[in-house]
């Protein structure tokens, strides 16, 4: 057996731990954190006939472009509406792949924001409550911006940006459907 003197042993172990720590690749955080159906059931229980459709007209897409920087990629959006609450399952690309967020808006303010599906290789920290809770109680100002500051996460800039955009979009769409109804 190969034996090392104890001081060398401890320094060797430290070195090995250091090398392993440096070589270790961060565990990928991609995945489905919550199925959209589960998210809706969690928010509204088993309420029937609350699913609605919103067709994204040219007028709506113009404002959406102001929020997202581009038009929403589908012609219609499915949402859930009960009393003064609406729930939205929205997607926006972080860096390369879409991030799916579930957002609940009640009386014009964000009540809940959950990351449902995260497909990027980095930036999944936005799924943690320390980040998502910053959105609770936020509403839209006249410029279609959030009425308060959301602190970013270093290394997750693009995911944070996507989450902020989707929060603004959910608030804007809530305004549209609740004003109409």
């Amino acid at each position, binding site marked *: 057996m190969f034996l090392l003197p104890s001081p060398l042993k401890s320094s060797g172990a430290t070195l090995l731990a250091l090398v392993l720590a440096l070589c270790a690749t961060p565990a990928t955080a991609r995945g489905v954190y919550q199925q*959209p159906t589960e998210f*809706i059931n969690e928010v509204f229980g088993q309420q029937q006939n609350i*699913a609605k*459709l919103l067709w994204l007209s040219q007028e709506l897409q113009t404002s959406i472009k102001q929020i997202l920087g581009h038009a929403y990629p*589908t*012609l*219609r959006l499915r949402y859930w509406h009960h009393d003064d609450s609406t729930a939205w399952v929205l997607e926006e690309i972080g860096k390369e792949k879409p991030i799916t967020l579930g957002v609940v808006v009640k009386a014009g303010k964000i009540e809940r924001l959950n990351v449902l599906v995260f497909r990027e290789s980095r930036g999944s920290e936005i799924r943690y409550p320390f980040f998502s809770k910053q959105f609770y109680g936020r509403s839209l100002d006249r410029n279609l911006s959030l009425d308060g500051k959301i602190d970013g996460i270093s290394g997750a800039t693009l995911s944070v940006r996507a989450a902020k955009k989707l929060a603004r979009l959910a608030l804007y769409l809530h305004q549209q459907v609740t004003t109409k109804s």
Partner: protein
Amino acid sequence: MSNPPNIKIKRNPVVCWHRRAGLTAALFVLILAITGLLLNHTSSLELDKHNVDSRLLQAWYGIEPPAPPRHFGANNHTISQLGEQLFINGKPLQKQQQQLLGVVANTMFIALAFEQQLLLVTPEGELVERITELPTRGNNISAIGQNSNNQLALQLGNKIFISDQQLLNWHELSDAQDIKWSQAIELDTDLKNEITASYQNQALNYERVLLDLHSGRLFGSWGIYLMDLAAVAMILLALSGLWRWCQGLKIFNTKIIEGRKK
């Protein structure tokens, strides 16, 4: 008439090799510089968005259409899937990893069924909606069809569900006799060839070819070694050129000193 004197110029071997290496590396320098310049501006030139339609290059890369392609027809529209690429009436639609299981159409949209989702598109190829919330969980879609009222039906496991016109609500059916299930169809050769050509064109873009030319990968593993050799030649050229320049400087300084002495 006197003959020119037979003068033998004794060249420095480093200079000789410097010139030879320079001549040999010139072609590689040109390739690397031109491809490097183009790749530096890949976004503005949209090299990744322009496809290579050269059959020769496609054959060189071994791009063949995957077999077997699947085609479905609905209301005079043809939806095809080759590999991951979807086509509507022969035009590229979008990519989808899951296998296309069937297609039905109504007056509002064309519905494409995959194992775990439905894609709703317009005949022009615009995405209406992507539905991932299926009527029941735990089972994948195995078939899509339509009843005589143009209502969309899905088979998930042993259960059959029928939807309203907007696909918002589903209810389970006990009797599926009225439903006509979507079946794969055979296409005419012209449309098949058009789809195959479109698939092959999409598989290769200019950015890929330029990257492979830059690295030498376009010519296989030997191409990489060749580019390595060219890189080594350029390093040697830089060093020998520097050495030669230093030598020239030394001679120039010696001549100045000698001139001052005289």
